[in-house]
């Protein structure tokens, strides 16, 4: 989930910093997000659940927590393909626009059309009702390069701590 903060702000117009201060920005520890066992995680905060021939992809609890209320989800068409590390959709919250990257390559077999009507499922149920696409993996070995739950938890903690 590559956060692309939207440009409609004074800050943009005024050419103000897009970098967070290292000091106590996010001074509150935000390490309460749920990370599920059995899933694989990408550094850009998407998860993959590989079951049988199909892998389900969504964004993590940590990601939705940082985004805030999701108000729109842009999904691809079924039948298309996704590539590892490349964007396949976007999630819009009140405060940000985020590209969502695919953690693996493959063919899109299904998209979660419920998100069109109820984008908030991403917030309320990031790992279940808020799934985004189902993919037939092109190269199952790609899954091995992703993080497991423990690694991802640590990754999130480090990312938060660096701010």
């Amino acid at each position: 989930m590559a956060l692309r903060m939207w440009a409609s702000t004074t800050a943009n117009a005024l050419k103000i910093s897009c970098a967070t201060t290292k000091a106590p920005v996010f001074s509150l520890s935000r390490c309460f997000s749920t990370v599920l066992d059995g899933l694989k995680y990408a550094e850009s905060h998407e998860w993959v659940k590989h079951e049988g021939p199909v892998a389900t992809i969504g964004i993590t609890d940590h990601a939705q927590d940082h985004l805030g209320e999701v108000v729109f989800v842009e999904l691809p068409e079924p039948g298309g393909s996704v590539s590892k590390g490349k964007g396949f959709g976007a999630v819009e919250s009140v405060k940000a626009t985020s590209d969502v990257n695919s953690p693996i390559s493959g063919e899109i077999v299904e998209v979660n059309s419920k998100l069109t009507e109820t984008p908030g499922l991403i917030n309320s149920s990031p790992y279940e009702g808020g799934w985004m696409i189902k993919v037939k993996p092109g190269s199952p070995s790609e899954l091995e390069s992703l993080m497991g739950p423990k690694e991802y938890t640590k990754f999130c903690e480090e990312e938060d701590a660096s701010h």
Partner: protein
Amino acid sequence: MRGSLWQLGQSIIRRLSEADKKAVARRYFASEADLKKTVLYDFHVAHGGKMVPFAGWSMPIQYKDSIMDSTVNCRENGGMFDVSHMCGLSLKGKDSVSFLEKLVIADVAGLAPGTGTLTVFTNEKGGAIDDSVITKVKDDHIYLVVNAGCRDKDLAHIEEHMKAFKAKGGDVSWHIHDERSLLALQGPLAAPVLQHLTKDDLSKLYFGEFRILDINGATCFLTRTGYTGEDGFEISVPSENALDLAKAILEKSEGKVRLTGLGARDSLRLEAGLCLYGNDMEQHISPVEAGLTWAIGKRRRAEGGFLGAEVILKQLAEGPSIRRVGFTSTGPPPRSHSEIQDEKGNNIGEITSGGFSPCLKKNIAMGYVKSGLHKAGTKAKILVRGKAYDGVVTKMPFVPTKYYKPS
């Protein structure tokens, strides 16, 4: 990567390419230590404020509440904003009014003492240098507040013209109120809460009016104004009293008035159809194009006498070629720079601000379109990430304003 208000505390840097990373480091990190803090900085942090760089200041973008909840709470109860980054300024001297009239479009002479208005500082081409709320305290004292991000250029602009004005014998001087902090208290509970902290009768102070009075034991400049569309106040308080006042306001409201950050402030002003300088108004946009014709005093329309008056008066006579309008739309929320097309796919303008309205639960935006296509109900397409979504020109404010006016 564009600079942006929205900092989620996530590692954006991590996601940038190496080249970008270096560029960002050069541009931004070098100056991080220089970020200014308001006297309420520790108070914000203690209340869970997420501090972000904004116009050279470290400011809270939100607190523990989500931006959605925070926006709605301001309209249902009340919100308190630290806007001390904004620049308060007093012009003094018997020629203050005639001096200021050279720089702004308002009929300053026509303002009754103790009243104010929104105005625009214009340049020679009729474009907007900044917008500002000005108040005529007395005939020889004007109080105004300019945008934090425009402070340096505004002050340079004012100073340059002031020198020339004084050289010709004009009597005007300025005082920059860096000894003061500025709190905005907005929403239906603003007046009842503030009334607990002052003996002055606030029911006699209407929208746009100004008073110097004692609040919570300190001499404050109080303006019944704001940037949310709600009834409310901006309170200029001596900085040494700002923390006590902020605490007192929260306490008197019994927790209903909440600290509210820049994120909700942006949603609130967009819902109220108010311009954000730098987005919806810029150097090349005139007040007429921006829909602020109402702010050009009648006398000023007849006499001119402000920078860029020829251009602006011509636009008034002939109509501007572009106009700021509101939009509602389907699909993802339009953002600044989203292209606007007519139904045939021809470019007709650009969005300057947009987002999801927390109170209306739908997309709202404002932008500029060619004149003739500006009427409410006009259908358009708004492009977001290459896809066209349905939009319709919609009258602003999107959420009705609730200014306190004499009935």
